[in-house]
């Protein structure tokens, strides 16, 4: 069965994209330049990603603030218009339903969740059932799936601010350049296309995510590619998106997070802010935090040239099972393999050595501090 295509599919074909199935979509895995060049472009210049496959769930109504409090594991109470929040979304047993960025359009009344493509329907169903059961829906909070009406492109890399600036009206350049991480401007325009401009991303670099109507996405995409040409911008596919996020140790749902894993077991403790709030997963998360979660996410550097990939079993040097690799790849910036692994907590401290089964071969790996890559300041 052919996958769904975003509004940019024909342009991506023309750019030499090779496509791969992902969450029911047919998406560019890489373009003509290849994953390594695309990865490098984002670290050194800029990359342009089509992430229109991601879900967009609007939360609206007079009780929307109460709904945010109940659904978000991170604390949404201080959110003002133009602020965004990264938050795990957890079930009552602390298992992770999804992770999302919530954009505050109007405090207490209107929010937009950008969620993982594979989870859109399940997220919406879960949110609605939580809001129904608690009476919040009846007090005025509605979930509307806006995914089909939302195209999303990510412009990432140190040159992103200059490239985007070239497409903005003169009066908008300063305020957009001054946007702090996890803030956004709604109701603006880039290259004449109305869009929401957010200083967010998933690469470990500076950058922006731009949400617009699907029928306008082509114009915006073309303008960004043209403005970026002299500044080293490359169109980038899912392959580079994965190597970039993994170097930055950003979690990917289905790998580091799932219904059986709490955010406390995925190195996301700083996004768990449930004390003194009415959050559906609050009790379970507080209990787990007090008892200490059984598992923890650690960073591994397998001995070159081995590349430990998702599913590889992790053991102590004595052969005792410790856990499993959740994501692993060749990290282009480091020039070697990196991996994230979920291990028994406290059993694989930083500086220790573990053994990973790479297709039947025991490979030594050092447990290291995360992230593998952090961009320099200044």
């Amino acid at each position: 069965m052919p996958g769904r295509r975003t509004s940019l599919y024909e342009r991506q074909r023309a750019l030499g994209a090779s496509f791969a199935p992902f969450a029911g979509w047919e998406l560019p895995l890489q373009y003509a330049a290849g994953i390594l060049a695309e990865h490098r472009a984002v670290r050194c210049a800029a990359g342009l990603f089509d992430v229109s496959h991601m879900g967009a769930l609007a939360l609206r109504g007079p009780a929307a603030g109460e709904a945010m409090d109940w659904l978000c594991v991170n604390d949404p109470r201080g959110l003002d218009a133009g602020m965004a929040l990264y938050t795990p979304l957890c079930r009552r047993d602390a298992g992770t339903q999804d992770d999302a960025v919530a954009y505050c359009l109007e405090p207490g009344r209107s929010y937009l969740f950008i969620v993982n493509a594979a989870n859109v329907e399940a997220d919406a169903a879960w949110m609605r059932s939580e809001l129904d059961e608690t009476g919040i829906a009846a007090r005025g909070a509605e979930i509307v799936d806006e995914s089909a009406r939302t195209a999303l492109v990510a412009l990432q890399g140190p040159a992103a601010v200059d490239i985007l600036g070239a497409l903005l009206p003169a009066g908008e350049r300063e305020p957009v350049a001054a946007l702090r991480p996890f803030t956004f401007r709604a109701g603006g325009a880039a290259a004449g296309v109305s869009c929401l401009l957010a200083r967010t991303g998933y690469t470990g670099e500076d950058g922006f995510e731009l949400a617009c109507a699907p029928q306008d996405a082509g114009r915006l995409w073309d303008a960004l590619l043209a403005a970026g040409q002299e500044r080293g911008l490359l169109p980038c596919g899912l392959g580079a998106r994965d190597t970039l996020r993994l170097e930055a140790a950003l979690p990917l749902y289905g790998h580091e997070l799932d219904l059986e894993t709490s955010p406390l077991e995925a190195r996301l403790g700083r996004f768990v802010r449930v004390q003194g709030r009415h959050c559906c997963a609050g009790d379970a998360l507080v209990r787990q935090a007090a008892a200490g979660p059984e598992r923890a996410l650690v960073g591994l550097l397998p001995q070159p040239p081995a590349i430990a990939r998702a599913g590889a079993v992790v053991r102590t040097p004595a052969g005792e099972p410790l856990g499993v690799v959740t994501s692993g790849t060749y990290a282009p910036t480091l020039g070697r393999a990196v991996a994230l692994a979920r291990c028994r907590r406290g059993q694989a401290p930083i500086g220790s050595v573990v053994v990973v089964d790479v297709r039947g071969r025991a490979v030594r790996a050092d447990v290291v501090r995360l992230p593998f890559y952090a961009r320099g300041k200044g």
Partner: protein
Amino acid sequence: MAEFPRDVAYTPEHEWYRVQDGTIGVTDHAQRSLGDVVYVELPAVGAVLEAGRPFGTIESVKSVSDLFAPVGGRVAAVNTALADEPERVNREPYGGGWLIRVDPSGEPAGLLDADAYRRLVEGT
């Protein structure tokens, strides 16, 4: 489009074999599907290959694949340049990106010519 030179024979698993000098590599189609190659694991000189059996692995950023021997024989030479420059497989799959050379122990069997291999990968 991928190249299908006529001076080599092909395995259905996307290796090529040049009968004249016993050279083995992966096809242009294979390197395009793999994407950027970051590591190639090859047997040592003197190792014995069995036709149709795995003799090494090729790893790209995204995936890892076994390499299958187009012919049985003894490894006569290994492309050591790939240790530092695995990207040669992408750049010149039929040239500087060759993998190994073998002294064949018999005639290759079950290989495809360029047209048959092209039909296989293009699904026509």
